[in-house]
C-alpha cells in the first residue's frame, strides 16, 4: 500500500503531529504548514514488536520504528536517507503503520549546486506532502515568522540549556508549554562544575541513554562539549538577518550544512569539530555509537588520528547498558588518565 493512500487518523481538535527522525528535517518547515513537529527520540518502549529484534539492525532505528508505530496522535512520519538503516526502516514502516510515511532524500554529497538543489526540491516535496495531509499552503511571511520564532527558542535553549532537547525544542513553538518539561539533555557545564573537561560526540542518543552524561559526571568529569546528534550538533542555527533577507534560502542552506560524518566527503564535519574544539578546555573525547552504526564506528580511528586527543569509543545495544558497572568502569579509567 502506498504511503500516500493511507487513511489519516487526524483528530480535528488536537494539533496534528508530524513525527520525524533526523536533524535534516527542518521543524520550522513542518510548523509553518500548521503541524506540530516532533523529533522523536525513542525511549525505547518496552515490549514493542512492530520491528522485531534482528541481527544487524541498528538499535536506534529499531527503537525509532517501534516508538513511532506506537504514537497514537500523529498525522505522519518523516524519515530521511541520511542513514541506510533508516532508509530501509521506511520500507518497513510503510507496510506496518497506518499513517503516511515520507522519505526525505538528503544527498550525501554537498559540494555541487545539483546536490543543493536536490535537497531544496525535496523540502518542497515534503511541503506538498504536508499539504496533502491537510496542512495549509504557505502564504506571505508565514515561514519567515516561524523561522524567527524557532531561532528565538534555539537561542533561549543556549541560555537555559537544561530546559532543552532536540525533541522539546522542535515542539516548542507550536506547544510552548512543552519547554522545560523534559530535561534530559545534559548542559554544557565545564565553567560551573569542577571536573576534567571532556567532550562527547556521536549519533543520536535514545532518551534513557542520556544517562551517559550523568555517568561521565559521576566519574569526575564535566561535559565541555556535546557533539551528539541529539545535542548541540543537531541544532540548526538560523541567522535572523538572512532570514529577513531570504528566508527560504537561509532555511535550505542552514539545514543542508549540518555537520555529519555521513556526508561525502565529510571534511565539513571535521572542520566543524576543529572549530568546536578550538579554544575549548576539552582534554579527551568520548565517541558513542550504537552497534551496527557504520558511519560513526568507521570514524573513530580517523578522528583519533586527527584530533590528537585521548578518545574512548563506547558502543551500546540500546539496552540501558550505558549505566552498567562495566561502562562506568571504562569511563572512570578514561577520566583518570586525563587528570
Amino acid at each position, binding site marked *: 500500500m502506498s504511503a500516500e493512500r493511507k487513511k489519516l487518523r487526524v483528530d480535528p481538535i488536537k494539533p496534528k503531529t508530524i513525527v520525524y527522525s533526523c536533524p535534516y528535517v527542518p521543524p520550522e518547515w513542518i510548523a509553518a504548514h500548521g503541524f506540530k513537529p516532533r523529533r522523536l527520540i525513542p525511549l525505547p518502549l518496552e515490549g514493542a514488536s512492530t520491528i522485531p529484534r534482528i541481527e*544487524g539492525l541498528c538499535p536506534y532505528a529499531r527503537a525509532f520504528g517501534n516508538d513511532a508505530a506506537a504514537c497514537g496522535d500523529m498525522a505522519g512520519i518523516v524519515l530521511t536517507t541520511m542513514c*541506510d538503516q533508516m532508509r530501509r526502516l521506511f520500507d518497513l514502516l510503510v507496510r506496518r503503520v497506518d499513517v503516511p510515511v515520507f522519505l526525505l532524500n538528503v544527498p550525501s554529497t554537498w559540494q555541487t549546486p545539483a*546536490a543543493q538543489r536536490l535537497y531544496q526540491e525535496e523540502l518542497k516535496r515534503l511541503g506538498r506532502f504536508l499539504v496533502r495531509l491537510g496542512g495549509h499552503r504557505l502564504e506571505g511571511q508565514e515561514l519567515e515568522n516561524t523561522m524567527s520564532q524557532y531561532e528565538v527558542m534555539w537561542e533561549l535553549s543556549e541560555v537555559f540549556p537544561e530546559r532543552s532537547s532536540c525533541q522539546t525544542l522542535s515542539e516548542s513553538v507550536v506547544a510552548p508549554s512543552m519547554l522545560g518539561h523534559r530535561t534530559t539533555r545534559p548542559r554544557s557545564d565545564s565553567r560551573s562544575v569542577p571536573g576534567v573537561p571532556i567532550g562527547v560526540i556521536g549519533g543520536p542518543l535514545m532518551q534513557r541513554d542520556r544517562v551517559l552524561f550523568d555517568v561521565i559526571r559521576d566519574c569526575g568529569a564535566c561535559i565541555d562539549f556535546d557533539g551528539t546528534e541529539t545535542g548541540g550538533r543537531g541544532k540548526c542555527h538560523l541567522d535572523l538577518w538572512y532570514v529577513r533577507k531570504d528566508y527560504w534560502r537561509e532555511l535550505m542552506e542552514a539545514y543542508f550544512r549540518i555537520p555529519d560524518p555521513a556526508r561525502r566527503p565529510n571534511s565539513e564535519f571535521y572542520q566543524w569539530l576543529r572549530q568546536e574544539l578550538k579554544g575549548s578546555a576539552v582534554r579527551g573525547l568520548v565517541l558513542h555509537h550504537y552497534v551496527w552504526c557504520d558511519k560513526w564506528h568507521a570514524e573513530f*580511528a580517523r578522528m583519533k588520528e586527527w584530533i590528537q586527543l585521548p578518545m574512548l569509543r563506547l558502543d551500546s545495544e540500546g539496552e540501558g547498558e550505558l549505566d552498567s558497572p562495566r561502562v562506568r568502569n571504562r569511563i572512570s579509567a578514561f577520566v583518570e588518565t586525563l587528570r
Partner: protein
Amino acid sequence: MSGTPRQITLQQWDREYDRLRAAGLSEPVYGGPLGRHVADGDTRLLKLRYDNSPAALRLWNFLLTEEDRLRAARHSGKKLVGTMKDLGTVPVMAYSLDNLVAFYPDGAWWIPCVMERNAGLLQIADTLGIDESFCPVRAMLGAFVTGAHFPIPDLLTCSVGATCDDFSAIAQRLSALGHPIFWWEIPHRRAPEADEKAVELPGGFSAPASLVRFVRSELERIRLLLEDLSGHTMDEETLAQGVARANQVRLILAQLRHLAFTAPLCPMPALEMLIAEMLAIHFCSDQEETIVVLQDLLAEVERRVTAGVGYLSADAARVFWVNPVADLRVMNLLEDCGGRVCGTEYLFAHALDPIPTDLPPMEALARMALADPMVGSAADRATRIVADIRRFGTEAVIVSRIPGASHCALEGEIIGEIVRAECGLPVLEIEVPSLTDATQATLRTRLEALVEIVKEKK
C-alpha cells in the same frame, strides 16, 4: 565441447586439463591449468568443485587472471579507473574510451574467501578501525594498503547516497588514507508522485523525470573526469558504441540465464553461473574477451540443453538466490543438498538489463543507474524477484545475508513477506561469511530442510 557434465575437484581439473591439451585444446593467453592459481595463494580453489567443460575452464582462468590484465593495461599506457559501488554504470562509460580500463576494487571482498584469509587483508582493516562488524568488503582497505591484489587506480569514483553505509564508510576511510575519491550522488529511487512526470526505467520500474535528470547531471560530471583522464572526447557516438558493446554482454547473459534457469536439467552449476553474471559489471577488465568467454559458455549450455544432459535430477528443488555469497563454496553446497539455482538477484540486476538504445546514451545510463536494486526499496526488489520467480518457475527463495551489511538487516524481512504473500513459496534466510567451514553443518541442515519442503510440495 565436453562430455558428460560433472563437477570435479581442482586436482581432477588439472588432470583433465592435461588430457584436453593433449587432445589439442586451444587456449587464450591467460589459459593454463587451474591448479597454478593455488600457488598464488588462492587456496579456497582446492575446496570448490567445478564444471568440467573447457568453457568453464576459460571462465575461471579469465576471472583469476584479472590482476595480470590490469598490470598489463597499465604497462601498455592505459589508465585505470577504480569504479566503486555503482556495480555496472561507470564502467560502461569508461570502456567507451580505448585507453581506459575500469574495475571494481570492491571485488576485493572475495579475497578473504579465495585466499582463505591468508592475505591478511581483514587484519589490516581491523587496524584501521574497520572491524568485523562491517561487510567483508572491508578487505578492500587492506588491498589498497598492500597494493598486492590490484594496481592502485589512476582515478577512483564512488557512488554514494542510496548505497549501503558500510561501503560509504569504508570508502571515506580509504579517502582519509590518501586515496582521493570522486564522489557522485545516486539518490534513493522513489515512485513518481501524481503531479510528477514519470520515466520508465530498465527492469520495469519508474522514477520521476527530475530524479533521472539529476543522475544524468552526476554522470555528466563523471564524463568530464574520464575525458580528462583519457585525453579523448567521449562524444555521444563513442558512448553509444560503448553502450552497444555492454548490451552485447547483457544479451548473451540473458540467453544464458534463461537457458540455465529454465532447462529441465540444470545445464550449468550455480557457481559458474554466478561468475558469469559477475562479468557484466565491469567485464573483468577486458570487454571483448568477456564476450568471447560468455559465448563459449552459452554454446556449452545450448549443447547440453539440446542433448538433454545436465546436473541433478529433473525434480531438483528450483531455488531463487538473493544477494551474492561471500563464500563461493556455498553455491556448491546448495547442489549437494539437491537444489539448483533457477533465478538470481545478486544486487546488480541493473547491470543485466539491456540499456535502452532509443535514447541519448547519457539519458539511458542515468535510467539504468537508477534501476540499481540497491538504490530502491526492498519492496521494489521483491517485486522484481516475484516477477522472475514466475518467469523461471522457481519453488523456493534463499535470501543470503552478507555479514555486517547495512542493507541486509531489514531487506530479508520485507522480501520474505512479499514473496510468501505473492507466491506462497518457502523463504529461507541464511548468513554467509567469507569462510563457512565452521558453519557448514548448520548451513547444510538449513538448505536440506528447504529442499525437503520443496520436494514434499511437488
